[in-house]
């Protein structure tokens, strides 16, 4: 029997500093490793344990993948001490991705807060690669300050590829020169500033507190519950739907999610 907890060694190809005290790890892909936007992997560092990380890279790249790691716990702290050439263990990918096929037929609104941008970066890469297959794409991105922004150098490329990108900062400081306009406030203010494309589906990813307020806006804008897709963060510990740490209602975030449509989870107490 295949041991589903067995990790495969993956060499670290590159480590770069990112915003939010994060580091972007580029890793060698294990054999037969295919993934989509919204899925995650368990990364194992023997002696420290395992932790889940969302895949944030261009999934058409066959030989490497990326995860963005913020230093928040034992595994992530140990990862921050690694160097290119070191190895980590990988298992996965796990979970249900964002439904990009649906976004090919409809306009798409992506609303992300903070580290949530990582989770949709794979989708953004895919859209840019096959831009003609998609219709109007808007991104609303909210972060705390310039230091917290992720993938700062990529916004230009996104905009050049006809992505309607809007950024707001809770505490703008003008520390970095950004090529896009910056609005002060939480991500919900962007709904007042940017006109929405017609009849879109929405992909959301952000901290739990963001969902409540964004859902209010989407509801007002007439989104149907089944057209709103959101990635839930939980403690995806075993990754294979057994240990129950990530259970939400009758779902396991690691298997049935992390991406759910709002109509799937709206009646579950504590889902958001």
């Amino acid at each position, binding site marked *: 029997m295949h041991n589903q907890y067995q990790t495969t060694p993956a060499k670290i190809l590159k480590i770069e500093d990112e915003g939010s005290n994060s580091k972007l790890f580029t890793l060698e892909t294990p054999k037969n490793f295919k993934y989509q936007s919204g899925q995650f992997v368990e990364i*194992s560092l023997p002696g420290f344990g395992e*932790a889940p990380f969302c895949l944030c890279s261009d999934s058409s790249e066959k030989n490497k993948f990326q995860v963005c790691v*913020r230093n*928040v716990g034992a595994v992530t702290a140990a990862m921050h001490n690694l160097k290119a050439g070191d190895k980590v263990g990988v298992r996965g990918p796990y979970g249900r991705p964002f439904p990009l096929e649906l976004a090919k037929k409809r306009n798409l609104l992506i609303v992300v807060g903070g580290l949530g941008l990582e989770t949709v970066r794979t989708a953004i890469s895919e859209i840019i690669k096959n831009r003609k297959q998609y219709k109007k794409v808007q991104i609303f991105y909210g972060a705390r300050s310039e230091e917290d922004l992720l993938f700062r150098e990529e916004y230009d490329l996104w905009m050049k590829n006809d992505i309607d990108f809007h950024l707001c900062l809770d505490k703008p400081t003008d520390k970095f020169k950004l090529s896009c306009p910056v609005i002060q406030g939480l991500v919900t203010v962007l709904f007042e500033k940017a006109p929405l494309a017609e009849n879109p589906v929405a992909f959301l990813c952000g901290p739990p507190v963001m969902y409540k307020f964004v859902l209010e806006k989407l509801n007002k804008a007439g989104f149907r519950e089944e057209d709103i897709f959101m990635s839930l*963060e939980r403690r995806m510990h075993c990754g294979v739907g*057994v240990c*129950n740490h990530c*259970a939400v209602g009758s779902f396991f975030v690691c298997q049935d999610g992390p991406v759910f449509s709002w109509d799937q989870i709206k009646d579950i*107490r504590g889902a958001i």
Partner: protein
Amino acid sequence: MSGRLFLCYNIKNMTHSELQKFIGFLTGSGYDVFAPEKQKDEVVYAKVEDAAKLKLIGEPPLHSFKRFLLPPEEVIFEYKKDRMSEVKKARKQVIFGVNPIDLKAIVLFNHIFEKDPWYQERMKNTLIIGQSLIPAEAEHNLFHIKYEEDVLEHLQFDIFLEVQPAPTRKGRGGGKNYFVYTGSEDGQKILDEYGYKDYEHIQFSGPIKEEGLEPQMVKYRDALKKIYKKEIWEDDLGARCIECGKCTLVCPTCFCFDIKDQPNLVDKGGVRKRAWSACFYNDFSEVGGGHKFLKTTAERIHFWYYHKFVRIPDQLQIMGCVGCGRCAKVCPVGINIFKVLASL
């Protein structure tokens, strides 16, 4: 099943002394046999050292079969630097005297751990010997399960001893006689090896009875899903529960676990372990950065009930509680699952 009545006049029962001989045969064949044993005021599982002294005790043991199939802590990998190698060690064991209530929990475990290499390896080396004495008192049998013959085809075991109501002659040690069923090829094989032929085989037909879903399961599931009674979860249970986790230790269907590493501090090596966890512990839902999704005692005890009475029924169409009442027995603040279910 109808064959049983037809056949019973020419099928012999196993006497208790023959059972003891059979258990002796198993210990002689290298099996560790664990059987319920009365120690002071409590029935507990203990290793059988002398099969001639084995008794069949109807009173359910305080701890179930659980630790024999899912140990409180087990090494699952050994690592050296970044190399991780699987560790599988399972001794041959017999879990003796499991009643139909606990056998239901084994059916659940078999589902949950169907792809788990360590559980499967342990099961391969385990013989489960069930028995038919079910406590009548509601405190040990919340759902009033009765031993009827059609119970067996929905349970998983290797051998099952149906305790006969009127012993024809007194066997040594217990005075009981048993009709023997087998529920697996392993069960048949071992009886054949021992030389006992008078058994009947039961084909497992899945956990759900022909009549469909258990009405009790549907009732609790729907009640918990549809209504959130603040007065139960927050005002009462959330205020009383002290989150000791004892209920999860004795519960035969609690299986949540943690995976953690333990370095040996010598050669960059160590082990990865799996250990029981409990949704009552406050870090159960904690993610990197410290956020907890189950913040209060009320949320955690609600999660426990939801798992047993909604999530497992939604996923597997069987109840995630077998009604053994152990949780109520060990709860230091007197939380009684029977009363909680009645108030849903």
